């Protein structure tokens, strides 16, 4: 008997969108209520997944499988095929939570074209969930592209003054990446046929054959996928669409963009790049290049953040820095690094999502994000100031809040892979404190000098409600992250094992510690027997 819980979670927002189509658009409040009910419903419906998943967290492979391979379009081998493991489980929970929160936060922020806004938001929600659930590359790509359109419209219609520039930049940049990825997918598809005689897009099936691709071809496939994901993450130097998109996007759009959309890139690395091309990613030169870009991203993003005059742009660049930590953890290629990275992706969703909400609240009241316009806000909005402080601390990785757990685990992974990497990442932690605290000082401390700020009202109960779940999650992960570690244990070890088995068979387990001692020629990098054994 198949459980349909994934499909139910996946399509609840879409049903909400369809439902909204039948509501007259003059009825703004009714639309808001309905959208919020479906968003909250989407979150509540995903909650039963937690105990269900928890019960089988240590079991290998994908869980809650739905559909069989090739059942959708048998002639080309595409299937409606869903399934999750610990990594996608956490990201799905993050998506449903942030989806609800951002829809709740839009209540007063969106006044024009209310109906279209909520419809697109709910469609977006389904697209994102689909990406994390799909076990079929065809289905995956459909969701991956489907997600782009609503986001494009959200920025392009409800955005700020330069919304068209930002929206088009976002769309084209991401599309460029996905086209390259599509080429990669097609190669894997035909390669699978060449090896087994079967045409299929099924990801678990491709896991078995992709590592067999010889190194000199695999490296190009890796690059194709890499550019697609690196743009999405975004890694330095593919990041410049991000600040524009963030600055122009409406608050809720930024929350989802930072909280979930960016995770598609890192998710892609973890789900595809690593297990498909284990020989390539563990090649020391490839690894050090990717890590190098991550490290540059960490420090560079932080430095650029430091000098921003626009709050939202500051937060956007801080994402570049934080996501640098995530990719650093992934390409450390050990269990500590990977676990920390996935955890940090969740943390970033929580903290940075909250940071965008925080900026949005001031923007809604004053319609400016210029830091210089503010000062002394903590006198007029004390509750807001307190919540901001907590989220800033979480973002800069203060222990007992979520950020520390992820960052530390990543650093440990990076350190065991190569201590220099951890040493280079460490200044990022210092700079994070610098740009956030300086921002806090300029906005919240001092006396109110701008008369426009004198009468700002503090948070409404609805606004506090949007922060409450994020603060609770931040504290939970900070104080008791063990369940998260346990959920990630199985899938992460699986990936690490795959990489280990498929990299140079003569290399010791810790081959990546001394990169210079290990430079395989393409022939040795091509996997031997180990490949099939590991991918089961």
């Amino acid at each position: 008997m198949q459980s349909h819980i994934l499909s139910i979670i996946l399509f609840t927002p879409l049903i909400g969108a369809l439902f909204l189509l039948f509501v007259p658009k003059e009825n703004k409040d009714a639309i808001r209520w309905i959208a919020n009910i479906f968003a909250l419903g989407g979150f509540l419906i995903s909650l039963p997944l937690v105990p269900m998943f928890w019960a089988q967290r240590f079991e290998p492979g994908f869980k809650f499988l739905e559909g069989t391979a090739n059942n959708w379009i048998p002639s080309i081998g595409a299937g409606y095929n869903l399934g999750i493991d610990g990594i996608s489980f956490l990201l799905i929970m993050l998506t449903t939570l942030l989806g609800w929160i951002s829809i709740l936060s839009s209540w007063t922020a969106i006044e024009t074209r209310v109906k279209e806004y909520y419809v697109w938001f709910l469609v977006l929600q389904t697209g994102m969930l689909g990406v994390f659930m799909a076990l079929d590359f065809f289905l995956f790509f459909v969701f991956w592209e489907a997600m782009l359109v609503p986001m494009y419209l959200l920025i392009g219609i409800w955005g700020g003054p330069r919304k068209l520039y930002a929206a088009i930049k976002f769309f084209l940049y991401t599309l460029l990446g996905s086209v390259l990825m599509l080429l990669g997918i097609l190669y894997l598809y035909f390669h699978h046929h060449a090896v087994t005689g079967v045409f299929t897009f099924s990801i678990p099936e491709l896991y078995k054959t992709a590592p067999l691709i010889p190194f000199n071809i695999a490296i190009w496939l890796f690059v194709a996928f890499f550019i697609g994901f690196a743009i999405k993450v975004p890694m330095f130097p593919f990041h410049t669409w991000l600040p524009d998109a963030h600055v122009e996007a409406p608050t809720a759009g930024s929350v989802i963009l930072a909280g979930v959309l960016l995770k598609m890139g890192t998710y892609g690395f973890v789900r595809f790049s690593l297990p498909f091309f284990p020989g390539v990613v563990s090649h020391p030169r490839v690894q050090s290049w990717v890590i190098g870009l991550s490290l540059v991203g960490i420090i560079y993003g932080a430095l650029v953040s430091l000098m921003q005059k626009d709050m939202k742009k500051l937060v956007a660049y801080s994402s570049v820095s934080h996501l640098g930590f995530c990719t650093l953890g992934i390409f450390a290629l050990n269990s500590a690094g990977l676990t920390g990275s996935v955890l940090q992706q969740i943390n970033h969703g929580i903290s940075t999502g909250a940071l965008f909400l925080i900026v949005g609240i001031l923007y809604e009241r004053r319609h400016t994000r210029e830091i210089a316009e503010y000062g002394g806000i903590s006198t007029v909005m004390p509750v807001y100031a307190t919540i901001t402080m907590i989220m800033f601390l979480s973002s800069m990785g203060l222990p007992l809040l979520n950020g520390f757990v992820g960052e530390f685990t990543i650093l440990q992974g990076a350190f065991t892979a190569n201590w220099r990497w951890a040493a280079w990442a460490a200044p990022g932690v210092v700079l994070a404190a610098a740009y956030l605290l300086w921002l806090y000082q300029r906005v919240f401390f001092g006396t109110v000098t701008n008369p426009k700020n004198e009468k700002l009202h503090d948070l409404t109960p609805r606004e506090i409600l949007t922060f409450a779940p994020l603060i609770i999650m931040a504290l939970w992960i900070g104080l008791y992250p063990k369940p998260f570690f346990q959920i990630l244990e199985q899938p992460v070890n699986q990936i690490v094992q795959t990489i280990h088995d498929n990299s140079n068979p003569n290399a010791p387990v810790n081959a990546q510690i001394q990169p210079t001692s290990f430079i395989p020629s393409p022939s040795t990098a091509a996997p031997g027997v180990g490949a099939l054994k590991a991918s089961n």
Partner: protein
Amino acid sequence: MFLNHIYLLPLFPAFGAAIMFFFGRRLQKATVSAVCVGVIVLAFLFACFTVVEYTHFAHGTGRPFEKIVYTWLGSGDGHLNFTRRDGTLAAVNADAGFLLDPLSSIWLLFVTGVGMLIHIYSTGYMAHEGGYYRFFGYMNLFMFSMLTLILANNYILLFVGWEGVGLCSYLLIGFYFHRNSASTAANKAFIINRIGDAGFILGALTLVWYLGSFRFIDINALARSGQFAIGDPVLTAAALLLFVGACGKSAQVPLYVWLPDAMEGPTPVSALIHAATMVTAGVYMVARSNAVFVLAPTAMKTVAIVGAITAVFAASIGLVQNDIKRVLAYSTVSQLGYMFLALGVGAFAAGVFHVFTHAFFKALLFLGSGSVIHAMSGEQDMRHMGDLRRRIPTTHWTMLIATLAIAGIFPFAGFFSKDEILWQTWASEGGAYRILWFVGYGTALMTAFYMFRLMYLTFYSPSRMSHEVEHHVHESPKSMTVPLVILALCSIGAGWLSWPHSLGGSARFEKFLEPVFAREAVVLVEEGKSGQLAAGEKEAEHTDKTEYALMFLSLAAAAVGWGMARRSYNHAGKDYAEPIAVKAPPLYTVLYNKWFVDEGYDYIFTGRRKIGDIRLGAMGAGEAASWFDAKVIDGVVNDVGWVTRAVATLSTWWDKWIIDGVGVNGPAILARMISYPARLFEWGLVQWYALVMIAGLLGFGMYYVWK
């Protein structure tokens, strides 16, 4: 029963902080005091009982008590692994676990004890301030973090407390957040501490990578097992990195600059956090890692040298400062330098002992200065004080005791601890250590001078107060003076706990600590002397005679400093002159401006000041990176967009004029041109067709007829 519930200790103040966080705004001041002081009193009592129970548990062996509550970081079953340096796997694991041994017992007692007194004092000092609940909430949060730091059983949980105290320090320095100087000082403190923290984390990661565990017990056991040679490069690196962390938290050169600025916070904060407890966390951490440091003579030497430099450097600045709290701040930095000097020469117990005595007399000095400031209606500049001894007698007497203690006058507490440090430095092997001794000795003289300068300017010299202020001078309320008196008693008696052998005592304090710093295993002696030095074996030269001589010299230094201060300041009138300013004006400028270190840092590291048009440091790098981002990276992206559009425009033109124009429309135009004459024949007028037809017919007819 107390020992088994040791995890409750940090939870008492955490509870107080939580109450303040959620309900503080609505509570009366009296309720706030009751809750926040109450939880600290409970914590203190609990701590006393716990330590008593621990001494029964340990029976003089000093074996540590460990209580693990739950697995904090890591999956708990050890399946989540990382690779150690030797290639074996170890679990990623840090527990919420608590450790009590003689070292943490001592910290536990004085932190809760002094903390309690300062909390009580604060109820008086802060009585008329806004944000009362906020203040006490932060103070309780600080106590929570500090107790976590002390009681942690591994480096990562220690780091929780370590960052936690840093956060509370930030919040409390910036307590008067509407003052720009306060929030800037708060940021400075936090960010400089973060630099240290980065070192700390890297050090801890090095240790776990090398030794496979974060737990102090495991690491110390391994380090003492004899498997590692003295001078092991990885352990040396780890020790040095940890020491970077200590430099940040304990304000050592070159990271000390935040501490003097931290005086922007309310005075009880300076007493609790920036004198007695938090800033000694670095000393605690190094003492806690003593087994590792002992294996790294380079690191030990670094600690000693940095400590000595800090001691003399800060003292030199303290000589000429006019703000009463700033003098004390530099004095704290200087005394912390002494503590590190002690640690660096392997005299861990002496260093810890100095932490212990310093906690009392320095807290007392700060609280006393707070009482002075309170009496002076907020005035902190000693140039506007004088002749306060009869107006605020309790403050005067208690501060005098503290000054005698810090100056190292027998038999006050500071005499014993400082003398022990100097003696141990002197007794260390190698001539270079004599230099360190000399530095320490000179610092002792300077300490006596600036402390008595403070006393004379504040309490003895003729009054330089304005009339307005003079009128309001009053002794502080009981809630403030009682803690002063208690601390004064401790400043006298605390030193007696370690009455040295040479004076017929039994050094009980050091004996209590001995197991923590003991070296059961044979340490591999590869570097001969430095190995012995590191192991703290200084038997060779230990003769009572030298020790007496040194004691006498110390006392003489204190007396000389006192005498010089008395001569210069006892009669300081309204326009008195600083003796240094008179004799060496350039030196005075340099000292008064704190050796221009802050300015240098602003030019080089932060980039807040420009050198000409060039901005260096973090802000300079930030500006450069922003420029690069906007012009180069985004420039390339936009250029690609521009090129695409240009190509598109070009192809549109090509399409319109060449493909469509020449290729498609061209033939059409040609056809039209060719067809134009043809059109003459067929232009749609039926009559014309008829005419042509008729003409044709006529033509044909004529042809045939003609023929």
